[in-house]
């Protein structure tokens, strides 16, 4: 099951996917660190109240992680959208699938091979963003909050990976990329709309539509719950995250919803294993 970890790493490094991603990520992080330092300096000079200063630091965190989740999502989409159909079309799967390995194991091995490196990249990004805010803006962070926030931050791209892989069993590479990117975009958009509705309430029909999108692809809900946990949960985040415009967390996804996302990922993987096992290569 672990044979794809090394092969995927070699693919990402030798095809320079990692190199390009790391260079651009580093560029983002440098710009981000510069921006945070300057803004934190300005906030300090303006002698804002302690509560106001804390809120500003939280805004930095929200913006930093919002962009970071974009990067991880793109990394997932571009590295995995041809994972099944693309390899079938170019003949890579033929020699592999004839080996004495059940198709479902092969499917999970490929998932694991990508999941490991997506987790590594997401971890680096998360640590870099959080460390930047903590160091330059002085936002206080606690180990428990950090761990919960980190866990949910890396869970989001793994959900997206599971969906992209399932799409890749049925659709050509481009179709899979478009499907996954659009669903991710819908999920993100529904989260932004949900943030706006915290100010003036929302009609029940809109609530239902947002819930439905969240159920179809729960990446944004997971991201928002992760943000909530990282920023102190009910202690602080409840106050701060309801006053950030479209980035506000109107309603915090519940623990039951997180359980739903676990079931969601398991069902996607099972469906993928089943479909791949029945697919003619």
């Amino acid at each position: 099951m672990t044979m794809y970890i090394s092969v995927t790493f070699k693919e990402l490094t030798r095809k320079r996917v990692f190199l390009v991603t790391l260079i651009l990520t580093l560029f983002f992080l440098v710009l981000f660190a510069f921006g945070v330092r300057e803004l934190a300096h300005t906030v300090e000079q303006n002698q804002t109240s302690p509560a106001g200063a804390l809120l500003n630091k939280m805004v930095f965190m929200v913006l930093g992680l919002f962009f970071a989740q974009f990067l991880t999502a793109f990394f997932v989409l571009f590295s995995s959208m041809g994972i099944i159909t693309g390899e079938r079309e170019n003949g890579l799967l033929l020699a592999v699938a004839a080996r004495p390995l059940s198709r479902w194991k092969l499917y999970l091995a490929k998932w694991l091979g990508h999941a490991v490196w997506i987790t590594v990249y997401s971890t680096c990004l998360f640590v870099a963003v959080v460390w930047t805010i903590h160091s330059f803006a002085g936002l206080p962070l606690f180990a428990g909050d950090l761990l919960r926030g980190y866990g949910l931050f890396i869970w989001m791209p793994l959900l997206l990976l599971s969906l992209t892989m399932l799409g890749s069993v049925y659709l050509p590479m481009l179709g899979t990329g478009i499907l996954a990117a659009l669903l991710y975009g819908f999920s993100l958009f529904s989260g932004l709309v949900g943030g706006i509705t915290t100010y003036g309430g929302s009609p029940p029909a809109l609530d239902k539509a947002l819930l439905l999108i969240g159920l179809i692809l729960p990446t944004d809900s997971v991201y928002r719950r992760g943000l909530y946990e990282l920023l102190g949960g009910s202690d602080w985040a409840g106050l701060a995250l309801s006053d950030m415009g479209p980035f506000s967390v109107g309603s915090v996804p519940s623990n039951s919803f997180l359980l739903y996302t676990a079931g969601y990922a398991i069902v996607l993987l099972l469906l993928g294993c089943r479909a791949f096992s029945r697919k003619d290569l």
Partner: protein
Amino acid sequence: MMIIETDRLTKSYNGRGGCRGITLQVPEGCIFGLLGPNGAGKSTFVKMLAGLHRPDSGRASVLGLPLGRPEARRQLGYLPELFRFQDWLTPEEVLRFHGQLGGLRPQETHSQDFRLRIRDSLELVGLSDAAERRVGGFSKGMQQRLGLAAALLLDPKLVILDEPASALDPIGRYEIRSLLKRLQGRGVTVFLNTHLLEDVEELCDEAAFLYEGELLASGPLRELLSGTGDNWRFRVGGWLPETLSELNDSSGNALLRLIDSDESGNAHLSARVTDREQAGYLCSLFIRSGLTLYESGPEPNNLEAWFLQMVKSRQGGIPQ
């Protein structure tokens, strides 16, 4: 013992193409050739044997186990037709990866023994000098050689090769033929799907012929070809359009066919004869009929004649 047995194996794609009701036996230790024109369903059949396609109906066993079982695939080496290996890996890394896919643990594939096995496999297919290069820079022929090395890596009992020499030059093809003979000498059964009739003629003990998804013939190659008799060709002068029917009236059961003729009276003829004496009789018949006999002799490639005869008989035409 039969190493491959299929019983009415059928696979179609939305009701079209594929193959229908293939019942076939491949004895252990032989080199078996699968023949047929393009679109005959050969690759579909081979992919079902390799577990890449699921049959619609029928049954099959490979190495005594039902189709697609991992236990059977453990002893099976497969070289696909249109395949690629990971561009970003070296041949050594490809073979190590295939070792792991074949059930070896990662530490086993890094052992000294396995390194030696990789080195031997690459040497066997003539890729020793390219062991450190990335596969992305390989020619088609080199990829095919590497595919063969991967298929043979784990000492399979059965090797299924789908067009193994299609991208190779004459030297490469000769080397592969020698290699397949050596494999047979070691008791390995080789199932060969190829368009190269000379490979089948030189290597195969048994063969099968597929046409438009149906199995038209199968069995020992010698028996299949014996049904065709010997094809002989003749070049004569003094040819007139009405001469053919006059000759066929006296040629007995050796039906003469006109291949081509020109205005100056030269003609090429062909006939299937039961033995050399009958060919000699035809030569005397030409002379008695006032024709000048310039050349006569058996056609060099019986398998090609058989192949064409099989195809044309299904198309309703007359084999030349």
